[in-house]
């Protein structure tokens, strides 16, 4: 109940931002919503279920291209977005069956390779995807502010939907099964948890929303290319956000996305040419000193203070 309240209030607050006509602020807001979607999605498989997936970029890119190809064939935008989610989800179920048998590093590498393969396939299927030339998506004939508001609301809507599903999963049987698998997969099996099905479900969930996010992103920037949408950073960033926010927690990924975007933007603006290194320092510091995420660390510190006061 408390979680739904947080979601409601959050949606309202972030929704109000859409009234702003500041395109830059809206652009940041859209990025934030997209990051939140990707982080939440990754949390299903990486956080809750404990499988270190590097396949987010694969789903994101697959969604972006599915939608772009359909729109190039004169399909409406909404159809493209829906199809993106279905294709990405379906693909995850299909590929998940074999690769989810792998664990640890092996799974990490296999999931990483999927994105690499998809990128090359898209790159070489020039007739359909334009190959390295990339694809243009139809421009909307709307004033810039209205476009910015529209895409912000769409991405925010997706983030809210993802969060709602995450809340349901977290409190439900599905999330319970994910956690059992994360804690001890063998023990979960003999307790009657159908680990293969649940793992595949977690992988599928992590794909659907990432795919739609890719599709919305494509229309938002109206140009996609393989090097960009299959960029490995799309796999790494959500992971860093979830680590920042607290692995396996419900709202941690959103919190992590906010902090990450703020840092990224600050670093990007102020450190021309060395922002990668600054980001690296942050990541290293986080792993060494905040391994359980900001949210958890805040809680710990708060508890200390309360403990001292009492």
């Amino acid at each position, binding site marked *: 109940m408390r979680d739904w309240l947080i979601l409601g209030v959050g949606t309202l607050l972030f929704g109000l931002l859409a009234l702003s006509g500041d395109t830059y602020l809206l652009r940041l807001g859209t990025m934030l919503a997209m990051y939140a979607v990707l982080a939440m999605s990754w949390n299903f498989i990486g956080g809750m279920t404990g499988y270190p997936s590097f396949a987010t970029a694969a789903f994101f890119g697959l969604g972006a291209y599915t939608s772009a190809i359909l729109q190039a064939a004169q399909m409406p935008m909404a159809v493209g977005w829906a199809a993106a989610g279905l294709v990405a989800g379906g693909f995850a179920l299909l590929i998940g069956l074999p690769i989810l048998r792998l664990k640890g590093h092996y799974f990490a590498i296999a999931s990483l390779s999927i994105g690499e393969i998809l990128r090359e396939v898209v790159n070489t299927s020039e007739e359909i995807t334009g190959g390295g030339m990339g694809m243009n998506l139809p421009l909307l004939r709307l004033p810039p502010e209205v476009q910015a508001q529209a895409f912000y609301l769409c991405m925010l809507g997706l983030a809210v939907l993802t969060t709602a599903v995450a809340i349901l999963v977290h409190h439900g049987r599905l999330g319970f099964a994910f956690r059992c698998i994360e804690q001890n997969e063998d023990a979960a099996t003999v*307790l009657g948890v159908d680990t293969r099905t649940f793992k595949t479900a977690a992988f599928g969930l992590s794909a659907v929303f990432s795919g739609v996010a890719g599709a919305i992103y494509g229309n938002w920037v109206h140009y996609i290319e393989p090097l960009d949408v299959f960029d490995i950073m799309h796999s790494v960033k959500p992971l860093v956000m979830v680590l920042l926010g607290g692995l396996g927690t419900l709202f941690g990924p959103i919190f992590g996305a906010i902090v990450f975007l703020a840092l990224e933007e600050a670093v990007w603006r102020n450190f021309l040419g060395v922002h990668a290194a600054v980001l690296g320092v942050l990541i290293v510091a986080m792993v060494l000193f905040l391994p359980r995420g900001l949210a958890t660390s805040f809680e710990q510190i708060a508890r200390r203070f309360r403990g001292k006061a009492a």
Partner: protein
Amino acid sequence: MSALLTLDGVSRSFGGLRAVDNVSLEIAPGEIVGLIGPNGAGKSTLINVVSGVHPATAGRVVFDGRDITRAKPHAIARGGVARTFQVVQPFPNMTVRENIAAGGAFAGRIASLKQAMQEAGELAAGVGLGDLVDQPANTLTLARRKRLELAKSLAMKPKLLFLDEVNAGLNPAEIDDALALIRRIAEQGVTIVLVEHLMKVVVGISERIVVLQNGALIADDTPEAVLNNQKVIEAYLGKKYAAALSAEGGGP
């Protein structure tokens, strides 16, 4: 009365090693069976074969009228076979209640998670963990973890329960408590296979004892008969010592 579990010529090999070798065995509903054998005799492997963790490489396993030789572990668990692990395997960061509820929610087929949590509380009280339901499992002592393991299995509402060395590492008083608990479980109609390498523990409680050595079944009889079985004595004590013992005319 037909058997609850039937093993028919079951073998399990790892590479060249035959951990379970052509074992045939029947277990009737309601029995308490002791499964004993020296370390490395293949007891745990046999449980793994039945519970589907390491499926048989030869032979057939029939449980409750269904062939489960190739079934997946989770399906076997849902079918009514529960087991504890020799090395306890709780979900370390989950609470006692959640640990137990997992058994109920997945193998025990309780549709509502709330219901499973509630029943978990009752089961925890039943094994003496009533005060600790909201503690994370990794904070429990070994003896309590073993009880947790038991409660998890019970939550699965099993027809057949394998208890793999539930008494190992416990002191005599704790062992007595555990045995009492096992009797109570048996009274509720659960068929129990008690796996031990200590003969002493099983003799008092089992109606029948099965002995494995080097993966093969060497005895399947009443406790008294097994205790006097030459092959069993040899298996436990070595040939030379067993021969000396029987010459003196004494028994263990």
